[in-house]
C-alpha cells in the first residue's frame, strides 16, 4: 500500500455514540469515537469481541438494527456530507454506489435462492441503470476480476454450489461492483483457512491498487492488520484507545491495552512452550461500564476512583498517533 502522507480524509467520524435499547435499559455500545480514513488507504480496526467494531461499521452504513439501535450523537462525514443527516433515500444511493460492505459470513450477504449472476446484476441495475443484458455481461466480468474460474458458468449457479472462499469472492464482487470509494470489510477472512485468507487479502490488495478505493478492515487478527493496513484504530469497550500509523502502533504502542494485545499473540519466533502474556479478566458488559478509563480494572495497574470515573482525553501525542490518555494506562 502507498506510503505517501495521508491526504484529506474521505471518511471522518467525530464523537460517535451508538445506543441500544435492551431489556435492562439503554446501553451505549459505541461511546464517543473519532477516526479518519483517507482516500485510497486502509484503516484497520482491531479489538476483542464485543468492543464495538461491527456496531461502528453498521453505523457508517446506517444499517443498525431498528428500532432498538440508534446513533445518539456525533457525525460521520463522508466526502464532506454528514451521513447521519442524510435522508434514507439518499443513504441508499450512497450504500449502493459509493460505499460497499463485506461481511464475515458470506452466506448472510448472499441470497441462497438467487443465481449469483442475478444478484450481481441487481447491483448494476439498481445503481447504474444498465440494461439486463449489459448488467449480466458486467457481472461476468466482475466475477472474472475477483478470480472466479469459468465466470460464465458460475454466474448461473447458486451460492451453495461454491466453496467458502469462492463465496467470499462473490461478496467482494458485489461490494465492488459499483466502484465504491470506500469498502467496509468486517472480518472478511475470519471464517476462512489461512491459505484462502491469503488469496482473499491478496485479491483485495490488488483490487485496491486497480480501483483506488479506501478500505476499513475490521479484524481481531493483528497479523492481518500488520500485513494490510496503513493506519490502525484499537477499540476497547466502545472507545478508541489508540490510533496510529501501523508501524508506529507495533513499534511503539502507548496504551496498556494495545501493549497487552500485542504481547498475548503467540509468535512463530517466540520461545515455544512458555507462558504467554495474558490480559486478565474479560471485556466488561455494557451495563457495567464506567465513564473513566475502561481498561483500568484489567490493566493490572492501580487506578484511583477518579481515574475510573472521569473520562480521559483523547489526544494526539505525535503526528497521527492518538491515545486515550489515562495517565496510568499510558505512562
Amino acid at each position, binding site marked *: 500500500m502507498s506510503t505517501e502522507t495521508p491526504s484529506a480524509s474521505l471518511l471522518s467520524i467525530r464523537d460517535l455514540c451508538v445506543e441500544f435499547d435492551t431489556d435492562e435499559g439503554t446501553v451505549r455500545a459505541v461511546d464517543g469515537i473519532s477516526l479518519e480514513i483517507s482516500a485510497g488507504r486502509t484503516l484497520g480496526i482491531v479489538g476483542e469481541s464485543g468492543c464495538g467494531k461491527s456496531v461502528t461499521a453498521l453505523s457508517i452504513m446506517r444499517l443498525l438494527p431498528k428500532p432498538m439501535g440508534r446513533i445518539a450523537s456525533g457525525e460521520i462525514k463522508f466526502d464532506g456530507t454528514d451521513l447521519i443527516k442524510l435522508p434514507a433515500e439518499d443513504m441508499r444511493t450512497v450504500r449502493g454506489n459509493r460505499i460497499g460492505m463485506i461481511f464475515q459470513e458470506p452466506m448472510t450477504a448472499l441470497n441462497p435462492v438467487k443465481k449469483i449472476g442475478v444478484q450481481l446484476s441487481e447491483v448494476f441495475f439498481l445503481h447504474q441503470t444498465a440494461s439486463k443484458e449489459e448488467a449480466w455481461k458486467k457481472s461476468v466480468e466482475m466475477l472474472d476480476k475477483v478470480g472466479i474460474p469459468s465466470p460464465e458458468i458460475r454466474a448461473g449457479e447458486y451460492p451453495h454450489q461454491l466453496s467458502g472462499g469462492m463465496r467470499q469472492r462473490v461478496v467482494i464482487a458485489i461490494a465492488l461492483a459499483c466502484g465504491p470509494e470506500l469498502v467496509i470489510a468486517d472480518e472478511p477472512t475470519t471464517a476462512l483457512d489461512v*491459505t484462502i485468507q491469503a488469496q482473499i487479502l*491478496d485479491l483485495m490488495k490488488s483490487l485496491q491498487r486497480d480501483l483506488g478505493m479506501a478500505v476499513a478492515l475490521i479484524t481481531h487478527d493483528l*497479523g492481518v492488520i500488520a500485513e494490510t493496513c496503513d493506519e490502525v484504530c484499537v477499540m476497547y469497550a466502545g472507545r478508541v484507545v489508540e490510533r496510529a500509523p*501501523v508501524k508506529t502502533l507495533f513499534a511503539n504502542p502507548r496504551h496498556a491495552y494495545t501493549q497487552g494485545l500485542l504481547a*498475548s499473540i503467540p509468535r*512463530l519466533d517466540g520461545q515455544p*512452550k512458555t*507462558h*504467554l502474556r495474558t*490480559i486478565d479478566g474479560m471485556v466488561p458488559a455494557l451495563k457495567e461500564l464506567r465513564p473513566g478509563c475502561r481498561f483500568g480494572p484489567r490493566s493490572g495497574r492501580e487506578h484511583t476512583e477518579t481515574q475510573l470515573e472521569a473520562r480521559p482525553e483523547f489526544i494526539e501525542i505525535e503526528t497521527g498517533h492518538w491515545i486515550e490518555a489515562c495517565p496510568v494506562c499510558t505512562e
Partner: protein
Amino acid sequence: MSEKATPILETTGLKLHFPVRGGIFQRATNSCKAVDGVDLLINSGETLGLVGESGCGKSTLGKTIARLYKPTAGNIRFEGQEIGDLKRKELQPFRREIQMIFQDPYESLNPRQTVGGILEEPYVIHKLGTREERRKWVKELLEKVGLPESSINRFPFEFSGGQRQRIGIARALALKPKLIICDEAVSALDVSIQSQILNLLLDLQKELGLTYLFISHDLAVVKHVSDRIAIMYLGRIVETGDAETIYQKPAHPYTQALLTAIPVPDPEHIPSKQILEGDVPSPIHPPDGCPFHTRCPHVEERCRIEEPVLENAGKKEHLKSCHLNF
C-alpha cells in the same frame, strides 16, 4: 523432550470413511474418505500438533483415536494394546485414559446441569467414590483450572467463552486421563483469553505429565505449544517432524505454502507468500496420485499418477510424502 521417547499412541493405515447416501433408496453410493491411511505416532508426555485446512479430516482423526468412531480400516495402539477393534464394553477402561476438549464446550455441556453436576458425572458413570469424595474431587478440579468454588452451583450460560473452556478442561481431567485430544480448543477465543487457556494447558501438562494431540488450523498457536507437528491434507499426513524442523525446513510444498500464508504480526516483515490456487479437492473424489498435486506449484507428471508414501526427509524422524526434493 526426554531422550528416550516412548510411544503412547500409534496408528497405522488408519481409515475412517463416511458413507455418502444417494438415490431413491438412500443406499451408500460412495464414501467420504475423511481419514484415509494415517500413520501417526504420539510419544508419552509430548504435544503433537495436528494442522491442516478445514475439512482435511483433523476432527475425524481425533474422534477415531478417541474411539468415538470405529475405524474403517487400520490399527490404533494405545500403550501397546490394540483398541481399534474393541467393542463398546471392552473400551470402557480406555475411555478414562483418552479424553477430548472441543472448540465450544457449550455445545457439549448440558445447559440444564450445574457445573458441579457436569463435573461429577464422569465419576458417577464410572462408579467412582462416595458422594462426599466426588464433591471434594469436583472442588479440586475447579481449583486446577482456575475457577472459583462458587461455580459449582452455577450453569454454563452464566460463564464467558474462556471460562466455559475451563469447565470443558476440568471435565476432561476428571478421570485422570493420559492423553487429551484438544480439537480447536482455543480457536473461538480472543487472543487475550486464548493465551490464558494455552498457559493453563501448558501448566497442566507439566503438573500431570499429560500427552496432548493438539488440533488447530492456527499455525502460530500450534508452533507455540507443540514438540512435534503433523501436517494433514485430504485425510493423510503429508509431513511430520519436530516443531523446529517443520517451521525452519519444511520439506513438503503444502507445508511451505501453509507457513508463508500465516500473516506475521510485524509491519516491518516483508511477506513472500506462496499463494495456493484453488480449494482442497473433495474427499469423496480425491485425485489420483499425490493428493496435493492439483494445487502443487511444483507438480510433475509422476505426481499425477503415483501416490507418494511418508518417508525420510533427511533429518531424524522428519518424514514427508512427496516425490520431489527441495
